[in-house]
């Protein structure tokens, strides 16, 4: 049974069809790359899966359960996490406190006994060290560089201890080595058991990361398979890679 | 129920005429809130300002209040552009519109009301014009001119704005700025400038709405507050961003209020708009013709 199963998902904005009958299945432990031109509906798909947007048709099943009626925080608590394309940190909280929020509200909602005090602190620091932000624990997000903000964004998603992580263009605007860092980080996370869907434009990163590649163009899925095969598919080349 | 048909017909007519007037009151908010997404709750304050200016000039020089308001429109436009500039510099630019932007407009609303109280006191003020008083009779139907003239002027204002927004470059840029700022920039139009123009227009309409208000009823500084609920109720009911929706919403509200007034008494009127607003928000927040 796939961890995430999206069937026939459609989303319109007024007259504009953003997503048209998307089918997508992600197995537990997989590393899936999702690519497509700007405006093809990638972020909309993530928003629909997480519940930030409500789809008109179709179903989203997570770990066998239909999640369509659930609000975003309920889906997060069931193990779905996402990072935002443009980082959205909690501006008035310190970097460490940004991580405390998902720990308090998602992790503690699941486990007994709840994380408290020193244990909570330790978990925050552990996550910060994982992404290399430990020295900035007491800073505010506005003091961070671009890369650091994106790392915080990822760390916050990971703090929720998800089964599935959807990383939405986590690497835009980063240098080559920074991109490599993040890919390595994501692969390491996957090795710990987190299923990851990576939405990205940077082909090098996508090819290195993905075990499977899905291509979205104008709201439709036009390819889904082995990265090397998909990349050589003439339909895909015409629609996307030829640019 | 013993309803007389006359009463019913005239309640509907009064409602429609009232709805026409409400269109003038709300059309500015359709632009500032519906299109620009700026929650200008001080809108009624500008209207009351317009009423008082019409009052002063009418009392001193005897000029027709509606004519005065048309002459005042450019000044109100400049005022609106200025207010937008302050709003933009202080809030919009830094992405902090919600709490502080709202407080800013609330402060404006409040300060305007208090200044008017200090200058004019709390007495009701009214204007004089040839159409205040007489009624036009058609069979059993009564058309009080003091309601009919504002209704006609209001609908003319709506028509002018609708034409402007759909036919001129700036008008269409205004509609576009709500949807796609990037595309607008590529057309070499500055989104900030377009928004400033739009907001200026929105305040310019309050000059006219203010004159119409003081034709319909005597005005004192706190009257503005009754209109906040009405204005947003109509906007939401009609569908944000749709000017024709505003007219429909205004007419509906006018008729509902007129019926409530006729059959339950006028002191319940303020509650009607709120009830309508809540109902709409609960049932269909996109409004009747919403995007």
């Amino acid at each position, binding site marked *: 049974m796939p961890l995430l199963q999206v069937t026939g998902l459609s989303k319109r904005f007024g007259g504009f069809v953003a997503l048209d009958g998307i089918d997508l299945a992600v197995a537990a432990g997989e590393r899936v790359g999702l690519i497509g031109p700007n405006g093809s509906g990638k972020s909309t798909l993530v928003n629909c899966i997480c519940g930030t947007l409500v789809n008109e048709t179709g179903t989203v099943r997570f770990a066998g359960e239909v999640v369509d009626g659930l*609000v975003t*925080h309920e889906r*997060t608590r069931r193990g779905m996490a996402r990072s935002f394309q443009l980082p*959205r940190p909690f501006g*008035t909280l310190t970097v460490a406190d940004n991580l405390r929020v998902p720990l308090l509200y998602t992790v503690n909602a699941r486990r007994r006994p709840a994380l408290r005090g020193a244990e909570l602190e330790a978990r925050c620091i552990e996550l910060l060290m994982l992404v290399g932000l430990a020295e900035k624990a007491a800073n505010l997000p506005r003091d961070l560089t671009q890369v650091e903000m994106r790392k915080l964004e990822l760390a916050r998603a990971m703090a929720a201890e998800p089964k599935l992580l959807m990383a939405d263009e986590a690497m835009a605007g980063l240098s080559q080595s920074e991109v490599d860092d993040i890919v390595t980080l994501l692969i390491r996370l996957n090795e710990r058991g987190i299923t990851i869907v990576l939405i990205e434009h940077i082909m090098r990163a996508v090819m290195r990361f993905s075990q499977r590649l899905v291509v979205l163009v104008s709201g439709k899925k036009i390819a889904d398979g082995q990265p090397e095969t998909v990349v050589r598919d003439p339909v895909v080349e015409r629609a996307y890679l030829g640019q | 129920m013993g309803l007389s048909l006359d009463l019913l017909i005239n309640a509907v007519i009064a409602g429609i005429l009232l709805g026409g007037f409400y269109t003038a009151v709300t059309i500015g908010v359709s632009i500032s809130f519906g299109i620009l997404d700026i929650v200008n709750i001080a809108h009624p304050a500008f209207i009351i300002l317009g009423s008082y200016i019409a009052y002063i000039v009418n009392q001193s020089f005897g000029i027709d209040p509606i004519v005065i308001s048309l002459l005042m429109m450019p000044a109100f436009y400049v005022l609106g552009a200025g207010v937008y500039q302050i709003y933009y510099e202080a809030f919009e630019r830094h992405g902090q519109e919600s709490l502080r932007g709202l407080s800013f407009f*609330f402060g404006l609303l409040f300060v305007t009301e208090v200044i008017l109280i200090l200058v004019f006191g709390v007495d009701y003020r009214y204007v004089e014009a040839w159409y205040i008083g007489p009624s036009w009779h058609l069979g059993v139907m009564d058309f009080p001119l003091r309601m009919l003239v504002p209704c006609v002027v209001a609908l003319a204002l709506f028509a002018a704005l609708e034409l402007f927004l759909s036919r001129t470059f700036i008008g269409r840029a205004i509609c576009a700025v709500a949807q796609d700022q990037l595309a607008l920039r590529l057309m070499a139009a500055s989104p900030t400038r377009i928004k400033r123009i739009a907001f200026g227009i929105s305040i310019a309409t309050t000059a006219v709405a203010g004159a119409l208000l003081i034709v319909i009823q005597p005005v004192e500084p706190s009257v503005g507050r009754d209109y906040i609920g009405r204005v947003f109720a109509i906007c939401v009911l009609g569908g944000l961003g749709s000017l024709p929706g505003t007219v429909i919403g205004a007419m509906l509200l006018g008729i509902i209020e007129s019926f409530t007034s006729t059959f339950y008494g006028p002191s319940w009127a303020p509650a009607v708009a709120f009830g309508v*607003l809540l109902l709409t928000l609960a049932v269909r927040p996109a409004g009747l013709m919403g995007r």
Partner: protein
Amino acid sequence: MQNGIFLLVSLVVAALVFFAARALNNDYIFFAGYTVLQFIVLATAWNILGGYTGYVNFGSAAFFAMGAYASVFFHKLYPLPIPVLIVIGGIVSGVVGLGTGYLTLRLRGAFFAIATLALAVVLQTFVVNWDYVGGSRGAYIIRPNQSPLTGPYIHYLFLLMLVLVVLALACARSIERSQLGYGFATIRDDELAAEASGVPTLRLKLIATTLSGALMGMAGAPFPYYIGYLQPSSAFGLEYAVNSIAMPMIGGTTSWVGPLIGAVLLGSLQQIATVTISSAVNLLIVGLLLVGFVIIAPSGIVGLVQHGWPRRSAK
């Protein structure tokens, strides 16, 4: 400082304030002081919703007045001791807060703000049409001259309001330092990201509106006894809305100290101004200060003390 200790310390401070006022032996201090204390409660209550979660309530007067009119209602029906009336006022206003929130909080913050503004007008309409509590003519509340506890009745009211202040401040402070406080802050900072992090935003917002409304209702409950003659126009007065926003915004919205500072400063200023100038000018000053601070010093006095003049971050 632990919550329990804070409570103890503030009770001691309150007791000191009370006995100091008694020592000065001037009833005016009690009458003026009551108003300032009332504003501390209102400002703190407003801030729990407005400052912590970022949802603006323009209808503070409505919640305040409902507490007052609940007292009038019971006064006519069956007189109850004021502490009981305070609890009732809290419940009534809390329920209204919950209801308003439930209907509008799933939409944008702007709609909630507009709904609260319209709410004040509507509730005033209801009260004006409700003859049992006096309608537009108003209601007289004869208050006893003496109270068994404290001697002059105004001392009793002052003491009650002091207790409410302690309650409100302790409440605000304990929220700030709790998990709830983090949740509120994330709603204010980025509601979408908060949901994605597992924060149940609707539930938290409803908690905030209920709590805020309840505290305002509690502040309103003794009001008829303070003022003796209650009219809708004074109970629903715009000065409550403006002050409950201006005081936290000027004092600083991110901490429980802000509303306290704002209320004490502005409240005292207004008491002086009303006596020396006029009440309309006094309100004008408050309005201008609000607009000024909102534009220039958005973090209020607390922000100025902590960070100096605000640097604008480029966007």
